[in-house]
């Protein structure tokens, strides 16, 4: 089986890889590029733990082929902090204790960032609907939503 040569930009850096035709973007990120921030919860699009953006669009990397990413720009959780400086969402997740085991957290942060880029002042209901595809078994969601709303407010104030 011949491998496919893919050229992408991941978190701003041009990245090339070879992948199998049926290999998912999630497997490429985790197993070939050692970007293990995106998690595999279900592998079927239900949990959102594998969330990344492709050309600015939030998607499940478990339901995207690695080969499809050729020529695309991909952003993952690894690109969220600016060096040592956490993104306001990351900071607020710590302050609000919006994570316990943490397996859902990278996907939720990526999804929440994508929400705030599209809509800097979401209502709580809008935030809950936007994040409905990100499952969390630990927190009960309330702290997550509070952290997102608080980060949104801080980002509005800063801009």
């Amino acid at each position, binding site marked *: 089986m011949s491998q496919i040569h893919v050229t992408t930009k991941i978190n701003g850096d041009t990245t090339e890889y070879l992948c199998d035709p049926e290999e998912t973007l999630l497997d490429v990120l985790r197993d070939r590029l050692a970007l293990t921030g995106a998690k595999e919860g279900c592998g079927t699009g239900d949990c959102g733990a594998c969330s990344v953006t492709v050309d600015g669009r*939030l998607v499940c990397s478990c339901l995207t*082929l690695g080969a*499809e990413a050729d020529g695309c720009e991909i952003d993952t959780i690894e690109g969220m902090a600016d060096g040592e400086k956490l993104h306001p969402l990351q900071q607020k997740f710590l302050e609000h204790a919006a994570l316990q085991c943490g397996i859902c957290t990278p996907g939720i942060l990526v999804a929440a960032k994508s929400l705030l880029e599209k809509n800097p002042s979401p209502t709580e209901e809008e935030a809950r609907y936007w994040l409905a595809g990100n499952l969390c078994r630990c927190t009960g969601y309330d702290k997550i939503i509070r952290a997102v709303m608080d980060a949104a407010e801080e980002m509005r104030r800063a801009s």
Partner: protein
Amino acid sequence: MIYEVPETVDSAVALLSGATGSARILAGGTDLLVQMKSGVVEPDLVVDIKRIDGMKSIAQEDGGWRIGAAVSGAEMGEHQALCAAWPGVVEAMELIGSTQVQGRATLAGNLCNASPAADSVPAMVAAGAVVRVAGPDGVRDIPVEEIPVKPGKTSLGKGEFVTSVFLPARPVNSGDAYLRFIPRTEMDIAVVGCGVSLTLDEAGTCTAARVGLGAVAATVLVVEDAAAALIGSKADDTALDKMAAAVSAACKPIDDKRGTVAFRTHVAGVLAKRAAKIALARAQG
């Protein structure tokens, strides 16, 4: 498996026609990849249509809208003119999955996956959508309801695929709506889905109507008796009750853990009535 990314419709058709084993189109992959992972389908060839010219466009044509086969639900929801013209089709598409699924899922994929519970399909049926199919013998336009033939199976022949969905021009005073029943508030499969589209004259009398019904038979249903109950009426309670009765009478559902025959049959009528009221309010502007 071989993965191909053709740049023209003709080369996609050639790839599909020339395939010796099983071949699948890849649009958003939100059905296909799930099926491949579970081993339900094991294609020898996957043809990604997203880089073909025109597949990503939403364009006005003869007063209607042509939606390319690779346009995602998110892109439809962001297109204001499309939302204004066909709010029912867009709301049906937007019910599919999560934000992440919306980033990839397509109308044509929802249709060609041929699930009886596909949400956008009853809305497209109500809209009178016409699907453009390219294949070895050229291009043909066919009514949307002729695509699914049974669960998981379409009428498309070897080498054929859907290149776009056309939503026709809207007369003034028209409206459409789609509602589904699911046990949760998000991320679930329709137990019943109903799309209604109607047009009123100046006096508020319904001059045209179409009703599409999902998840209550092996394929989507076009309920002509329900449309007939609306046409010529003012869509008042008597007409709506008659329409709901026609909808319930058309149901041929299965019994499963998600809904009994009696429940689905009843809910179909209720949803049809509610959807008709929303379509009516939209038609009245």
